[in-house]
């Protein structure tokens, strides 16, 4: 079983989630509660050096999945592994030593930098917490990190509001990189930026991944940025992964009906598939209960009767290509 994409560097698993569920309780009134499942049995591996895009519309649980990978939230059920170690059984000390290796860049560069701190202090804090380091060593590492992300040392004494959105996002990236992470979770890092800046940041991310062998989990709702940056794409729908495939295969193989829908409504002039806006029907139902059957059933154009009661598993249809759909197996 050889994966299809070119720069797939290693089979070494950096991080993994196994059958992860995340439940939120919504209090409605005094006595009634509603249970909301953000994730419903997600299993996913991240390999060394790859960019795994998690693609899905808002509310599908992609951000929650990212936070679970980051260890910011605990799953209600299931396990999270970092470098082969289960986070649940990790001692505080071990967790602390692994902590710098898994970092993140968030969507909004304005809210991801503390407005009351200078860039110098924003970048020095992660270093001083995780490593024994003097001010001078710190400053030289900060200088290096700024160089990596293409910023001059002029910004050191600025406050975040004195920088542009693109510059702020670069600072956020430098803050994550300064700890030399092995896994970087990028939660829609470009969706708050201008188109030209988006391209710059995406190119920078590509370059950094190749030179430092970092794995990315790239959370996005845009099929175009996923195509541009990712080596592998996982498509999520209502808290479930419905398809995983090598990024190169996008649009060239039979896809899950939901991915098909995403492709068909994508307004990209270079899109091989013609936009077909008539395919856009309905909205995702909120997964308040454990829905039986296929989550995509209400919107699917191929639906059959047993789709409503039976839940399709993720099945490998060709090497590296997994689909959960009875129509495609």
């Amino acid at each position, binding site marked *: 079983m050889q994966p299809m994409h070119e720069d797939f560097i290693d089979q070494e698993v950096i991080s993994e989630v196994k059958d992860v569920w995340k439940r939120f309780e919504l209090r409605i009134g005094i006595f009634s509660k509603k249970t909301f499942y953000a994730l419903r049995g997600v299993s996913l591996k991240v390999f060394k050096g790859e960019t795994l895009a998690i693609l899905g519309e808002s509310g599908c649980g992609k951000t929650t999945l990212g936070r679970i990978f980051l260890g910011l939230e605990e799953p209600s059920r299931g396990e999270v592994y970092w470098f082969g170690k289960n986070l649940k059984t990790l001692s505080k000390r071990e967790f602390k030593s692994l*902590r710098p290796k*898994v*970092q993140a860049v*968030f969507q909004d560069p304005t*809210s*991801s930098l503390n407005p009351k701190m200078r860039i110098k202090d924003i970048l020095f*804090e992660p270093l001083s917490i*995780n490593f024994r380091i003097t001010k001078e060593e710190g400053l030289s590492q900060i200088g290096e990190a700024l160089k990596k992300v293409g910023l001059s040392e002029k910004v050191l004494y600025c406050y975040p509001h004195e920088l542009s959105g693109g510059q702020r996002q670069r600072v956020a990236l430098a803050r994550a990189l300064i700890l030399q992470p092995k896994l970087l979770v990028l939660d829609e890092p470009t969706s708050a930026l201008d188109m030209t800046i988006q391209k710059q940041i995406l190119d920078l991310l590509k370059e950094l991944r190749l030179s430092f062998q970092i794995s990315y989990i790239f959370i996005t709702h845009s099929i175009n940025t996923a195509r541009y940056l990712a080596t592998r794409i996982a498509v999520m729908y209502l808290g479930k992964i419905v398809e995983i495939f090598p990024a190169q295969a996008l649009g060239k193989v039979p896809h899950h009906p939901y991915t098909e829908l995403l492709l068909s409504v994508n307004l990209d002039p270079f899109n091989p598939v013609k936009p077909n806006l008539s395919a856009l029907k309905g909205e995702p139902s909120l997964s308040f209960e454990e829905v039986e059957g296929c989550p995509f059933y209400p919107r699917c154009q191929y639906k059959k009767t047993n789709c409503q009661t039976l839940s399709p598993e993720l099945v490998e249809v060709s090497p590296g290509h997994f689909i959960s759909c009875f129509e495609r197996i």
Partner: protein
Amino acid sequence: MLKALISHRTGFFSFLFLIILFLSALFGPYLYPVSPFEIHVQKILLPPSLEHPLGTDLLGRDVLARILYGARISLQVSFVAVGLSLVLGVSLGAIAGYYGGLVDQIICRIIDMFLCFPTIFLILAVIAYLEPSLTNIMIVIGLTSWMGVARLVRAEILSLKEREFVLSARLYGASSARIILRHLLPNAVAPILVSASLGMGHAILIESALSFLGIGVQPPTPSWGNMLIEGKETLEVAWWLSLFPGLAILLTVLALTLLSEALQDILNPKRK
């Protein structure tokens, strides 16, 4: 921030007034070297004149000197009381907002409990039980005025802690204490400052009210509140005895209130 304050008209004037008040409380006794305690039987109830700019009282003491000395007392009371209420309010509010859950529930119920008592009666009861010394008054005012600050800080922390820079800090391993002290509270300074300046005005008013009721600062130590009550009996013949301490209270509290409004304007980026 100081620059913005200077260009804000009401903010500037109230700030200027408070600075002058502060300096005159500090250095007044040197600039106007008349004892506020010395009794002159032959100079009873003199109206304002060049020798005694604000007149003299029933015991022939100089009113201006007493107001200057009273400013010290009133400012001291307001600073210490507000300091105490800030320490209590900020720390409890930050803990409640940051940790949430049961801790939050308990702290909120304590706040509700304190808010249930009518403050002035609580103070009356405590002071009647203890002795009405300056220290006790400052502590009691502080202990009964922290709830507003706590609620404010809690709400502020609740919204701040979801911001992504706080998530980032957790990601690089910052401890809870560091997150609260370095990342959350510095971003909540604006509402804290506003409520502190309001609180100082409030403390001065409470101290005056207590002195007026005779359980505040005890004579012969002058405070604006007890000067006001001393002037009450002679209001028809010697208006200056009540008017000037009353004016001092009015202007100071007004300046503090206006300053807090100005700070609200200046520190709120959305109003710019």
